[in-house]
């Protein structure tokens, strides 16, 4: 029996980072997947150790545009740990609030994208409309819709007052109602059930063995949430329970994100209520006071994010900087999910781990037997997936 290679990527729809998947297909069914990583090696880790710590914060912000707050928060925490700096409590709360707002906008984005990929364009537009109000909140607090530039070493850059608190609470309460309605749609709607339930199955054992993180792991029933396991920022002072679904399919991963939206809103509200008064940042000299290392692990919207920094005494640049992004950890898991699925389900499954690939719309089909190559763009692949 001849198998055909279906090459998706390195430049691929709906994904934020170029990455190549070669699918061995038998008819319409994917038999095997071969991922190839490293298309966007930007040399960021080396660049980080060539720049001062202040510049580093802005460079790690650009590792991923969508979860930029997560990256700056992790970097700031890692560098603070290496420097031996304790940040004020109020700044921890503010960091938590903006981090959760960032998660809200990231989850709403990917939920919309998945809906669009499975052909449910109405829901896609509704999600993205709601994402807009979250981005307005982020702009109100930080000064920009996406690139927030909010966390710095030693705290946060802007304070919030009573006006902002009422604004955030007002928006979140109306958004919570809508999210509950979307959740009902996700539970009942036959289209979504047909396209998501049972698709891209990842068992709990496989998720554990392949080292899945974030909503991908939680959708397979793994109780893995850094906010619960190793509370950072203000999570040790607010109530938070990890959202777990046991189904292990695309639907479960989306439901995890939907429930996390509600959980995030509760965290933000609790932070706003509990927020202590006090300074928002402490002055930190540019050079490292000691040779040390700092590790910071946080729960980014896509999963566990790790930053690791080595400092050199009296040097204003890190000696070594290392970043482990959650999508990287989820690639083996997504390969496992893709085995046995239909070609039309590939976009939905890939998007269900909320990957951080680059987003230009093209894919190539190669028939290995005849050597025939066809380039298809994302639109036609998406069209195919909507059939």
């Amino acid at each position, binding site marked *: 029996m001849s198998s055909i290679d279906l090459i998706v990527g390195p430049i691929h729809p709906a994904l934020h980072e170029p990455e190549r998947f070669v699918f061995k297909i038998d008819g319409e069914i994917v038999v095997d997947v071969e991922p190839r990583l490293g298309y966007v090696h930007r040399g960021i880790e080396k660049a980080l150790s060539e720049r001062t710590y202040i510049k580093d914060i802005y460079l790690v912000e650009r590792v991923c545009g969508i979860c930029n707050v997560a990256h700056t928060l992790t970097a700031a925490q890692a560098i603070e740990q290496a420097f031996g700096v304790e940040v*004020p409590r109020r700044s921890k709360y503010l960091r938590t609030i903006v981090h959760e707002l960032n998660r809200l906008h990231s989850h709403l984005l990917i939920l919309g994208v998945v809906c669009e990929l499975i052909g449910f364009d109405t829901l896609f537009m509704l999600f993205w409309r709601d994402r807009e109000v979250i981005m307005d909140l982020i702009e109100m607090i930080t000064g920009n819709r996406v690139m927030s530039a909010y966390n710095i070493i030693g705290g946060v850059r802007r*304070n919030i007052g009573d006006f902002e608190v009422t604004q955030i609470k007002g928006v979140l309460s109306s958004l919570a109602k809508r999210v509950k309605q979307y959740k009902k749609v996700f539970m009942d709607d036959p289209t979504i059930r047909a396209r998501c339930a049972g698709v891209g199955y990842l068992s709990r054992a496989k998720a554990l063995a392949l080292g899945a993180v974030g909503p991908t792991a939680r959708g397979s029933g793994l109780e893995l949430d850094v906010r619960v396991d190793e509370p950072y920022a203000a999570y040790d002072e607010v109530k938070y329970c990890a959202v777990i679904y046991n189904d292990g399919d695309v639907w479960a991963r989306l439901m995890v994100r939907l429930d996390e939206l509600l959980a995030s809103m509760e965290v933000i509200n609790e932070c706003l209520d509990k927020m202590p008064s006090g*300074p928002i940042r*402490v002055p930190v*000299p540019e*050079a490292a*006071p000691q040779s040390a290392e700092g590790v910071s692990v946080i729960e980014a919207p896509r999963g566990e994010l790790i930053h690791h920094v080595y400092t050199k005494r009296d040097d204003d640049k890190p000696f070594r900087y290392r970043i482990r992004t959650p999508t990287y950890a989820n690639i083996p898991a997504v390969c496992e999910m893709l085995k046995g699925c239909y070609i039309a389900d590939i976009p939905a499954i890939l998007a269900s781990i909320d990957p951080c690939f680059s987003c230009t719309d093209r894919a190539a089909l190669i028939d290995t037997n005849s050597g025939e190559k066809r380039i298809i763009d994302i639109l036609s692949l998406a069209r195919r997936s909507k059939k």
Partner: protein
Amino acid sequence: MEALRKAEENFVVLKAFNDLVLDVVSKDLCTKCGMCVSSCQVHAISMTDEGPKSVGPCRQCEACYYGCPRSPATSEELLKASLSSEKKDDILGSYNKIVSARTVLSEVKSVAQDGGVVTTLLIYALEEGLIDGGIVASKSTIEAWKPVPKVALSINDVLEAAGTKYSNCPSLVALKDALYGYDLSKVCVVGVPCQVTAARNVKVQPKAARKIGDKIAFIIGLFCMESFPHVKLAQFLTSNGIDIAKVSKFDIKEGKFRVYMGDAEVLSVPIRNLKDYANRFCETCRDLTSWYADVSVGAIGSGRDWSTVIVRSDEGAKLFDGAVQNGYLEVKDIESDGIESLRKIAKRKASKN
């Protein structure tokens, strides 16, 4: 050759923190006011008991050098020109009016040194929303009578800091906490003449950290003859058999330094006997009445439980008159010999140093 000449023309020697150490700290001129710490936008300076110390790489922005009250670059003409006052006086500085005032707030009366004017002005400004916080010297909770810089954000904080301390403290370090840490936009600085000069410096000197100056709403100056390092003050009291922790109040009245425990006066020595204990940097200071403050407040010249208030600028008048009109302070005309005695003492400080 032409290019080289051009490059030479454009070559500017930027003053780094090292120059500040060379020109001020190593010459025993440093008043430990803390303005260099607050001026530094890359947080490379920290304050120790011996003076400012470098803790990070200096980026040569010159802000610390030009903000320093004792820096050779400080231009007195600019400082003088910044005050829009009617009467020019060499000894008392330029001023609009001199009056006696005292507080009417009972909670201030119980803690205040004399008239409680500074505390009341701060409370008024905080309640009216004229300022978000005040930079004050509060008492340390660890060492008795050791002043520590503090940002007063509430009336309780202000009341805690009431009362004169005769040791110097780097009050302006708290400006960094207020402006960088708390992100306040309007603060009031309370300080002795050297600190007031620093605060006025950052408002008017073009090369000083004027971003900080923009956020200083008012400068309240205190009268200061000289200050004593906390360590030496404690030593002096111990040599006289007094534990500094038990002292309830210090005062300088009628040329004598008086120490109270409870209500009883336990020690009174002529102030000139204390000369050996005073800070060395006070020897070069000629300013008794905080020339460059918006409002200067002190005990000299008014009777018991009254303070002498010198209003020097429009902002100062706004603050002081507002407090009077809203019933925070009561005012009376200063006695004519009050100004004379103030002038006499100020002249003595100016001629002595």
